[in-house]
């Protein structure tokens, strides 16, 4: 309620402010209405969503493999190297990725995965590091072997945290999607649409589209939170 009031007050001040280069909320609202009723938006949203989900799936799989392996001392340095890769910028690597991939679709996917995995791995490794020693001790008292203990404590016990890590890092994937879609525009996507509006200096539609991207991000954040509670009921307690 308080947030709603604050938003209304802010929009009113914005609307009342003298018109300049920045469009008024009413104009943006009109553009937003037009966008929401057009198939152009939803076709492009669908393209972006599919690419994001595909990238998330690959990223989660890669993250899990390296994170689970990190409990074995031999693989720990590799997992820590992936964590440090957060400081690599994608811009300088685009040419290399272009050489390594077959088409624009693969290029976008590989860039997204490369950008997401270090963040996923960082978050999930911190979850593993914070594992209560008593969880392993209980396994030991139950007569579990090393691999059985790892399966129970890390794989089963941390499954809900994997979901939380995905939820927290979905924002990174969603933010990157507009960037990578600008690299190969043939397949469309919200990023492509955004660049087109930007190119023609159509600020009204740029902001309207940003609002759609923002709203969808919040929706998926909420959805993933709900799904986590549904799949892992003990997280609600």
């Amino acid at each position, binding site marked *: 309620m308080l947030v709603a009031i604050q938003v209304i007050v802010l929009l009113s001040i914005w609307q009342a402010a003298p018109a300049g280069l920045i469009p008024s909320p009413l104009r943006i609202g009109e553009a937003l209405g037009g966008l929401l009723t057009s198939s152009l938006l939803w076709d492009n949203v669908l393209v972006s969503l599919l690419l994001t989900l595909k990238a998330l799936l690959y990223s989660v799989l890669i993250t899990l493999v390296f994170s689970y392996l990190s409990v074995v001392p031999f693989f720990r340095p590799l997992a820590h190297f992936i964590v440090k890769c957060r400081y690599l910028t994608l811009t300088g690597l685009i040419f290399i990725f272009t050489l390594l991939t077959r088409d624009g679709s693969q290029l976008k996917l590989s860039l997204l995965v490369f950008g997401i995995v270090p963040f996923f791995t960082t978050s999930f490794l911190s979850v593993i590091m914070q594992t209560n020693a*008593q969880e392993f001790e*209980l396994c*030991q*008292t139950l*007569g579990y072997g090393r691999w059985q203990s790892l399966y129970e404590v890390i794989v*089963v*016990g941390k499954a809900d945290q994997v979901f939380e890590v995905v939820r927290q890092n979905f924002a990174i994937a969603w933010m990157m999607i507009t960037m990578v879609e600008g690299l190969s525009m043939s397949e469309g996507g919200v990023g492509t649409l955004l660049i087109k509006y930007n190119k023609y200096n159509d600020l009204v539609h740029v902001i309207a589209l940003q609002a759609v991207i923002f709203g969808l991000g919040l929706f998926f954040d909420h959805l993933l939170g709900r799904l986590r509670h549904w799949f*892992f009921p*003990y997280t609600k*307690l």
Partner: protein
Amino acid sequence: MTIYSKGETLLQVKDISLTYDNKCILSDINFSIDDIIRPGIQQGQVVSLIGRSGIGKTQLFRILSGLQKPGKGQILVREGKPWNLRPVHAGDMGVIFQNYYQFGWRTVEQSLKLAAHQNKALAGVESDAILEYAEQFDLSDVLKRYPKQLSGGEQQRVSIIQQLLKGSDFLLLDEPFSGLDVCVLDKVVSLLLKVSLSHEFKTLIIVSHDIATAVAISDTVFILGKKAGQEGSTIVRSLDLMERGLAWQEHVQEEKAFAETIREIKACL
């Protein structure tokens, strides 16, 4: 006087010492637990390790359970037929931690199943055994719940059943009486006695600083303390409560010998 005799050694603690950060915590701890034989009864053993806070009880508890290696010495436990003593490994003993730790992501039933699957003797009848124990321990209604949804008493009973289902003869309990109100305390005491009567070799080792309750439930008491001139803690006294006629008595607290024994223990601490 109750008729009893002592049989073979079930557990032997030999020359256990532990040093941590160049500080001697435990020094030359030696004791053994023998099978108690009572005609017509499957009498298990209930042994208490009593000592003041900070004396090293938890370290000794961890060493006994096989979760921590001692600096010196070894713990030997009975193994199969022919009678044989071998070094303890983690998993040999059922361990009930002071906070009754359980996997937060498993329901009570799932946790109990995990334990039952470790017990070859229960192969194929795990679910029946769980239902039987749950009924016996008044937990039938909470089988579908998660640990966070249980009361402290329920968590304790789940921990006990879990370790019983696992099937080890030894049950190690860290401060099982702490933080319990009088009514729950009585229940826990009768529950532990029931467990001790479930099998001839069932051996409960209770680590506690609650002297009165520990003595009331035990047949043997070992006192962990410090000897003059010795840095680490050791067993300063052992009391055979069977000899004193204080074991297996329902209202033992009302006996004069009980009060004298408590005084004697306090004097050793």
